[in-house]
């Protein structure tokens, strides 16, 4: 059981801000590969929030799927098409 | 010699005009029928508002008649607005969603 101490809440704030900034940053990249990696990093923060919301199984699943599988699929797509966004 | 157009000539020119550059095709009958259908449908839809209030329906009917006359070939607008462009459809969906929520919340 996780005790919700003050420092824990500080980390939670950082994670929420990180999710938001990561989401926006992923969509603003010109380099699609970098966008895929940033969306993977965003889902680590998401996995932390799942953990904090008392769903550790989801945290584990999200950490694996969101950082490896989904960016992997997108990276495959990028390598089969093109890496940068065209003007 | 000044040529005086009869009503038939005017209507014929108008209808030929709005199928425009496509020239004569068997699409034209479709456009004509579609135009009439749209006019009738919009009038009926406007009159449906009598279930909310009758004065509103009367005002709407007059407004719709004016709108039909103003946007004369309405079918062109309808064809353009129901295009299969993904972003346009998504835009309409967002607007539609907002209207649905607003109307149901208003009914509360």
């Amino acid at each position, binding site marked *: 059981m996780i005790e919700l101490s003050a420092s824990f809440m500080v980390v939670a704030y950082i994670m929420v801000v990180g999710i938001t900034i990561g989401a926006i940053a992923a969509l603003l990249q010109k380099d699609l590969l970098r966008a895929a990696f940033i969306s993977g990093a965003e889902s680590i923060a998401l996995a932390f929030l799942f953990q904090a919301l008392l769903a550790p199984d989801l945290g584990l699943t999200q950490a694996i799927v969101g950082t490896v599988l989904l960016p992997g699929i997108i990276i495959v797509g990028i390598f089969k098409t093109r890496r940068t966004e065209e003007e | 010699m000044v040529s005086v157009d009869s009503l038939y000539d005017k209507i014929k020119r108008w209808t030929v005009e709005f199928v425009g550059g496509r*020239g*004569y*095709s*068997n*699409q034209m*009958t*479709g*456009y004509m*029928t*579609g135009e009439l*259908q*749209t006019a*009738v*449908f919009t009038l*009926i*839809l406007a*009159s*449906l508002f009598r*279930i909310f209030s009758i004065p509103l329906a009367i005002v709407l009917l007059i407004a719709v008649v004016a709108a039909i006359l103003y946007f004369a070939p309405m*079918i062109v607008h*309808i*064809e353009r607005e*129901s*295009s*299969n462009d*993904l972003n346009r*459809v*998504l835009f*309409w*969906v967002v607007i*539609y*969603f907002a209207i*649905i*929520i607003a*109307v*149901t*919340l*208003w*009914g*509360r």
Partner: protein
Amino acid sequence: MIESISNLWSIPLLVMIPIFATIIVNLLFNRNKAIKYISLISALSLVVITLLSPYGFQWFTGQPALNPNTLTFTFDASIPAWRMALEFYFGPLQQALIFVMALILVLVIGIATNGLTKNQGPYIGMIFLLFASAAIIVMVNDLYHLWIGVEIGSLVVAGVVAASGEGISQKAALKYTFFSALSGAGLAIALALILGLTGYSNISDAIRYIQTTNLNGMSSILYVAFGFFTLSWIYAGGLVPIHPLKSEVYGAAFPHGTAMLQTQSKLMLVAIGLVMLRLFGSLPFAREVMLSISVLTMMLGVVMALLQTDLRWILAYLIVSHSGLVTVGISLGTYDALVGGLFQAVNDVLYMSVLLLGCEAVYYLGNGTSTKTAAGIAKKAPWLALAVVLGTFAASGIPPFNGFQSEIILIQSALKVGLPEVAVVILILSVTTFIALFRAIYSIFLRPADTTHLVVSGLIPSEAQEVGKETPIPRGLYLSLAILVVITLILGVYPDLVIRFLTPVAQAVSIPWYP
């Protein structure tokens, strides 16, 4: 606790047989003969199962009821003691709808296994998955499986459409999948809201909670949930803002694939519509919103159908506009209107399949399905012309056919609730259907063939379709056309054959209309 309630044997079979058939057929990949027999046998077994099965339930995590005698009907919202029950129900409505779908499945598979030569296994498999998803959605009584069924169905639709291999069909599949992502997320949010509000995933339980509990501060959450539900409803049936995407999906798939696609989407429309009527039907303005969506769908669909010059696209838009007819019945919500709407769903599936299979047969004659290139087919294939004309009569509601029976019920019920405008719209729809279809049928079937070049010379070249080689129409196509036409005639003369399956649902679900 009484343990005498047992799960029904047929419900898991109806879902699992298509899924197993998908897996087997997918593994066989290109062994066409084996694929043909296995898929035909499993499709026929689905028909037999729906015919023989008794009515009953399938529970996954349900608790037995205190008194089994009160368990009359799942669509009756007054079942006690079901907590968190993930539940399937097979009743008269489900029997009728799934039987019709299984029939179409047999015919479609019979045609697809003869016509296709490449990648037959995955394609047939996806058609089976279409059946499975629609069967799940029709039988389901909990929000969780409803959502899963919608998600499976949307992915499979994309697959079936992309299988036809043209650029336009891949584009249609991509657009449809993007929107399905949006509406699937919306449905999940609606699920979360209803779950947070009531605590039940079972629809009957949620309805009972909403009806018996005072939701004073929280009821606006219900409206937001209604909005998201509407989003997935319009997505499933291609109602108004989605009609360009959905009609593109219908037009871009193979015509026999479209026959299955439209069956699935009509069934999804009926099932989600009934869930919405049960959950939100008593909210003020909810049914008015649904009614206005359906009227707009009828209008825009049929007007867009008038503008097309290709029989394929005319049919695509007509299917969308006729699903508006189904939803008019459901959104009016009275007993008569519900019977009319559900009956219209069955009829629609049948006569649109006649027209779609006729469109498929026109392909075999070489000149495409555009009104500009194809001509004079009535001379080459008189029986095909007859079948398509009869299908047109059924679609436009001419008396001895089934379209007439359901449309007259719908018109009468619209008049009875005091909305003559809706009745007028339905009438105009049926007349315009006739106009839109007969324009194409005249050009394709009845116009003499030798004047074609005059029309073609005035064309924009890119619009002209590739002119293929003429191949004889397979016998199976004629046989399925004959079966479907006979069924439309029989249902037109004896509508009670279907209506008696629909009345129990209509009685349980109907809500009187207060103007």
